[in-house]
């Protein structure tokens, strides 16, 4: 498998996801600068976390208009899988590759902590190494992770199995108490209609190494390697 990590000015999890990809792929991902309008063919494109362009406008809004994103959108439309983590998720919604929007956290504060997620389906390129309905622990770190879509969109997304992860408690229930940012339906991550694009607020690359206190995130990268190799 070949993967590319897009580096925007202000990306700050590009190295972290590079390390996680290298571990699962056993080869180096390509790092692509935001000013590039084309880059070599790859099997996976990753948009990392961070504060692209400072997030001084709406999070992800500037990055969505950068030269490289035209190419990312074109390839995504041709079926190349795209993974957006945190700021990468925000960029994907701003670029129109994923439905809904990600707003400021309900309590208006940045939050960094481990959360529990329910894997809504193991039937995707990104999650085949998880059992459907399993609970995993992965950190979040964001100021703007409050996912919203209107009820018609949400119903359609639900019908098509586009909800990837929900924040849940230790019993796997998507309770209010387990919702760290006010996201509608406790949604932590969503797919596009063909399930080739995934955006999620939690950072799987931050718990892909037992030395860091957990390994639950690694299966995302391992699933991709298995599906795309």
């Amino acid at each position, binding site marked *: 498998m070949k993967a590319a990590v897009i580096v925007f000015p202000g990306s700050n999890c590009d190295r972290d996801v590079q390390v996680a990809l290298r571990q699962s792929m056993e080869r180096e991902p390509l790092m692509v600068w935001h000013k590039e309008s084309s880059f070599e063919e790859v099997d996976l494109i990753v948009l990392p976390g961070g*504060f692209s362009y*400072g997030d001084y406008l709406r999070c992800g809004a500037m990055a969505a208009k950068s030269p490289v994103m035209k190419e990312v959108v074109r390839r995504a439309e041709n079926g190349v899988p795209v993974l957006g983590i945190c700021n990468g998720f925000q960029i994907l919604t701003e670029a129109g590759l994923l439905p809904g929007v990600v707003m400021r956290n309900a309590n208006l*504060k940045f939050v960094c902590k481990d959360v529990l997620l329910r894997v809504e389906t193991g039937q995707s390129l990104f999650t085949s190494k998880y059992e459907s309905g399993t609970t995993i622990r992965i*950190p979040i770190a964001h100021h703007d992770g409050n996912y919203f879509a209107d009820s018609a969109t949400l119903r359609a997304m639900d019908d098509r199995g586009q909800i990837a992860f929900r924040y849940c408690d230790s019993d796997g229930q998507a309770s209010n108490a387990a919702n760290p940012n006010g996201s509608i339906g406790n949604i932590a991550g969503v797919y596009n209609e063909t399930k080739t694009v995934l955006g999620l607020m939690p*950072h799987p*690359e931050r718990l892909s190494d037992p030395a860091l*206190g957990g390994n639950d995130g690694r299966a995302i990268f391992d699933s991709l390697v298995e599906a795309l190799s």
Partner: protein
Amino acid sequence: MNERAVSPQVVREHGLDEREYDLILDIMGRRPNLLELGIFSVMWSEHCSYKSSKKWLKTLPTSGPHVIRGPGENAGVIDIGEGLAAIFKMESHNHPSFIEPYQGAATGVGGILRDVFTMGARPIANLNALRFGEPDNPKTRHLLSGVVAGIGGYGNCVGVPTVGGEVNFDASYNGNILVNAMTVGVASADRIFYSAAAGAGNPVVYAGSKTGRDGIHGATMASAEFDDNSAEKRPTVQVGDPFTEKLLIEACLELMATDAIVGIQDMGAAGLTSSSFEMASKGGSGVELELDKVPCREDGMTPYEMMLSESQERMLMVLKPGKEDQARAIFEKWDLDFAVVGHLTDSGRMVLKMNGEVVGDLPIDPLAEASPEYDRPWTQSPALPELPASAVEAPPDTGAVLIKLMASPDLCSKRWVWEQYDHMVMADTLVRPGGDAAVVRVHGTNRALAMSSDCTPRYCKADPRRGGTQAVAESWRNLTASGAKPLAITDNMNFGNPERPEIMGQFVGCIEGMREACTLLDYPVVSGNVSLYNETNGQAILPTPVIGGVGLIENLKMTATPAFKNADEEILLIGETLGHLGVSLYLREAGWSGEAAPPPVDLRAERRNGDFVRGLIQEGLVSACHDVSDGGLAVALAEMALAGDIGCRIEAPDRLNPPLHAWLFGEDQARYVVSLANAGSVVAAAAAAGVPACRIGKTGGDLLTLPGGEPISLCELRQAHENWLPNYMGVAS
């Protein structure tokens, strides 16, 4: 251009006294113009010149086998093996953070980050030691909320994890909060960049953000007391742009991988003035700047404004000749301003030109190095009586006291603070905030750095010398409790007005205590910062010498954390317990208002006990380890139980010497609590090493049971511990 004439009034407004002005006339051989006066004013401000503290700082030990570069550079440098160096420093941003908490704290973080990456290190961790006024003070919530948001806003965006620190409250900080920010970075030991710049003709290059009118006279403001009109000083506070800082880090590190740089220096306090002076002075050069080349944010800025601006995210470099285009390409790639603004000369003078006309001309060495140094009069703080434990009444229920302590502002959980900081970015945080020391892996290696910040200001007030010793010892102990070998410290000396002999006496006492501890623990000072004049209307803060410590873990698998890991383990108390209650939190919560001496620190016992405990951790013999500090043994046990969600039952040893409450809550130094499956061989080894170690109970269950008290459910204890701060900040828990 410099409209205002230099009158005695103008000299005073620049914070210079008559003696200092006479010295200026001597050095210049003529009257300075306004621009030149402004330059003298910032260079000789307390903040930049250390004129009151220099004499005493020089007495601290600064060398050791691990020290690559001690004080005098942007940050200290120590050897951490495998060809790598750790570069670190702590710096205060107290005055601006009180005036404008968000930007004050944010730019404090930005400034200390620049001090570290200026030297070629990638920053890998931030810590913050914060001190606020009493919770009932009407400003405390606003300041706490703003400072935490500012630290997070900057650090989170830059992408350096904020992994540790302290948050404390005391009425003495009502008018002067403390915001001390520390950055730790890692560089190749053979690629460290210094500020000294030599070579006549070499280009002087400006890079980063544009220069604006913000922060003019920030250093001078930070060198004076506050009064009721301090809010009027808001325009002297700078505004931070963490996005530009992130770009600047990447661009500088990219340029540093080439061989283009002769010297590099960030523009911190006193901006372009102090950066250019320091580079030229250390390199024995002269410098000529063409100020019309400086990238400016607004039109019509005068040379005075450009030289004194403290706009953030700016760097000054001297390049090798002919390397300008290579460097420009890197900065342009990162969309940063880049301009050649002058060149080095061999004149020993700083010549400032604007549109070809000389607007300032000053000798460098006399100004930068012959700045005033004062031997301020000082008086020793009066010695306070030792308080015998028997003089303090026993409480009816030790459990109830413990709950009260765990829910007190100083000891309660600071989760509300550190969950607003990204403490995991860079994916190397091995031990997260909330324990003794944060532990961060050195990327790509099996090594890790342990780091913490420590100070107990109420001890320093009661006995500056003991307090200074204790601050260093506690730092050393915190690193040891994680399994690290403590290597070196940075110090951030926060005090009141040094022109008052009793304040100067506190400073001298703390330094003496620190010197003793640093010497005996082989724990040298490699960098530091002094913040004086932390007073409002004559009310000084508690003396607060904050110690930022860095230690090395050679095998990251051999570390310990405070959390109990397993039930049915034995709990050992290591170190001697005499039951010292003077200046303890127990006494404070009991409302005891008399004066007493703080705990003495036996540095030989500290070293012996610590070396023993570190050995246990490195051999993998203990499953949990915690140092005993504020609140004593009972609080240490409660923290271990909550962190592991495993209870414990504690029994006092037979023939207990101090009264039970003094055994539980006394703050004797040089002590640790460890838990382990089988204590027998460790107790024997301790006896052989001359280290006091006694079995005090077992882990297990969901209750914490202290002798002399009702059992406490961990659930109840956790609520008390976790809820105080969110409730105080008005957040439903």
